[in-house]
C-alpha cells in the first residue's frame, strides 16, 4: 500500500501528531523553525540552477541520491526558514524509503499537520513543486540504477 493518509511511516506519524495538537499558528511556526534548525541542510555552496526549485517565492534547492543501503536520501536548502522546515519534514517522510515508494508518496501529510492552512497559495504551490521534484528525482534514481 502506498504511503498516504492513514498509513504514514512511524516517524512522520509522530510529527503529524505533534503538529496537529497545536492550534496556535505562531506556535506551529515556532515548531517549524525548530525543524528547520535541525534539518540536514544543503548549504548555499551546493545551490545550483540545476537543483533549484521553481515556483517558490524564496530560494529553494534539493539534492537527491541513494544512501549506502539503496534507500532514497534528499537534502534541501532554502533561504526562508518556513521552507527549510517544510524540507526537513519532507526529509523525515521520505529519506530511507525505497525510491519506488517515494515516487508514489502522498504529500497530504502537510495538510494533516495543519500546515497547509498556514501557507500562502504561492508557498503551498512551492511546497507541491518541491515535493513533485522529490518524486521526479526518485524516478530518475530508479531509472539510473536499473529498476527498483
Amino acid at each position: 500500500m502506498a504511503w498516504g493518509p492513514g498509513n504514514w511511516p512511524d516517524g512522520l506519524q509522530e510529527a503529524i501528531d505533534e503538529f496537529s495538537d497545536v492550534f496556535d499558528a505562531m506556535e506551529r511556526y515556532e515548531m517549524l523553525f525548530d525543524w528547520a534548525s535541525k534539518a540536514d541542510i544543503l548549504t548555499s555552496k551546493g545551490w545550483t540552477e540545476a537543483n533549484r526549485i521553481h515556483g517558490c517565492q524564496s530560494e529553494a534547492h534539493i539534492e537527491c541520491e541513494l544512501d549506502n543501503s539503496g534507500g532514497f536520501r534528499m537534502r534541501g536548502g532554502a533561504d526562508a526558514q518556513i521552507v527549510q522546515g517544510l524540507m526537513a519534514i519532507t526529509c523525515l517522510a521520505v529519506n530511507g524509503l525505497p525510491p519506488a515508494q517515494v515516487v508514489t508518496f502522498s504529500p497530504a501529510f502537510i495538510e494533516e499537520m495543519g500546515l497547509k492552512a498556514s501557507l500562502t497559495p504561492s508557498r503551498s504551490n512551492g511546497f507541491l513543486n518541491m515535493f513533485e521534484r522529490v518524486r521526479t528525482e526518485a524516478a530518475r534514481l530508479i531509472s539510473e540504477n536499473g529498476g527498483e
Partner: protein
Amino acid sequence: MVLDIAAIRADFPILAREVAGGKKLVYLDNAATTQKPRQVIDAMSYFYENCNSNVHRAVHTLAVEATEQYEAARDSIADWFGAKRENMVFTAGTTEAINLVAWGWARENLGEGDVILLTEMEHHADIVPWQLLGEEKGIEIRYIPINTEDGTLDMGAFDATIEEVSLVCVVHTSNVLGTRNPIERIISDAHARGRGGAGAKVLIDCAQGAPHHRINFATLGAEFVAISGHKMCGPTGIGCLLVDEDTLTEMVPFISGGDMIEEVHLTHSTFQTGPQKFEAGTPKIAEAIGWGAAINWLSQFDMTEIHAHCRGLGRWTAEQIRGIEGMTVHGEHDSDSGSGVVSFLHDSLHSEDLARLMDAGGFAMRTGHHCAQPLLRAFGVTSSNRVSFYLYNTREEAEAFIEHLRDVVTRFS
C-alpha cells in the same frame, strides 16, 4: 474637515472580518489594492441586478440605462482628473494604459535615434513594454538612477541626458519607497529641453499618485497620464489613459475589433475618432460604473487630508521599524510629499517568513520584489516587506502592527 475614520471604516464591510483564526484584520497592503466601500459594491450590484446589458449599440431599455450609467461614470472620472471626456481612454488599468502609449503612440512615432528615459524606481509595467518596443524599433532606453540614501531620483543625471530624450516615462509616486517625484519639474524640463529643444513628451504613471493626490490633467501638462481604479477604492480591471487631444491624433489602435470601428468592409475598416478608437470590444461596464462610484465616494473628502493622514501613519511606522534591532527601512519618510508606504527588511528574518508570521497575527502586508526588481537591486536586496496605508487605517492599527512585529522579531530572529 478632519477625517472621521470610524465613519469611513463603517463603509468598508471587509474591515470588520476576522482572519488567522479569529484575529482582527489589519489591512496594510493598500499600495497593491485598496478595499472597496459599500457604495462601490452596491453600485456594481445594482447594475448587474437591474441594468445589465451591453452598451452603445442596442436600443432596448436596459441598453439605454447601461449606456447612460457607463458614460456618466466616464464623465465623473474625467472631471475628477481635470480632463475632458475626449482626453480619456478606458483601459484595464495602468499597465494597459502604458502599453497603449508604447504600442499605440511610441511605435508609430519613435524609432532609431530616439531615446526613452525611464527611472530606476519604475514599476515593471513602466519598464518591460519599453524594453520590448526598444528591441523592435531600435530605440535606446536610459534610466535616471536613484539616490539610495533618501530614495529620490538623481536629477543631475536627468539634467545631463534630457536634451537627447524623445519620451520621458516616470512614476508619480514609488510603490516601494513612497517617494513623490518632482514630476512638475520633469514635465517642464522635458518640454523645454527634450529632443534638442524641440520638446519631449512625458508619461506619468499615477497608479500610486492618484489615490493620494488630486491629479489634474489640465494643469499637470503631461501628454500621457496612466491611472488604475482599484488603488483608489474602485474595482479591479478598470483604469484609464489620459492623453492630450493633439497627441491622441498621432496614435493608432493598439487593440482592434468591435465598438472602435466606424465601418468594416472586406478589404478595410475605418475607425471611430477620439478615445473610442482605442476601446475595442465590450467595455468593462460594471467596473467603470464602480470606479465612478468610488470617485463619487472619495469626493466627499479633501485629498490633502487623506494624504496627510496616510503620510503621518507611514512616517510614524517607519520611525518605529527603524528602532527595531536588525531592521532596515528603505527610503526616507521625513518629507511631506511621499505616500504612506514603508518598505523594510530584517537582517536575519526572511521577508517571506516575516510576512507569514505577521499574517498569523491578522496583519496583511506585501512581500517580494513589488514588481520593481531594478529598484530593489539598487538597494542590494531581492525582496522586502512593505506596509502601505490608506484613509481607513488608524493609528491603533499601526501601533498593533508594530507591537506584533516586535514580538515576531523577538521570538523568531
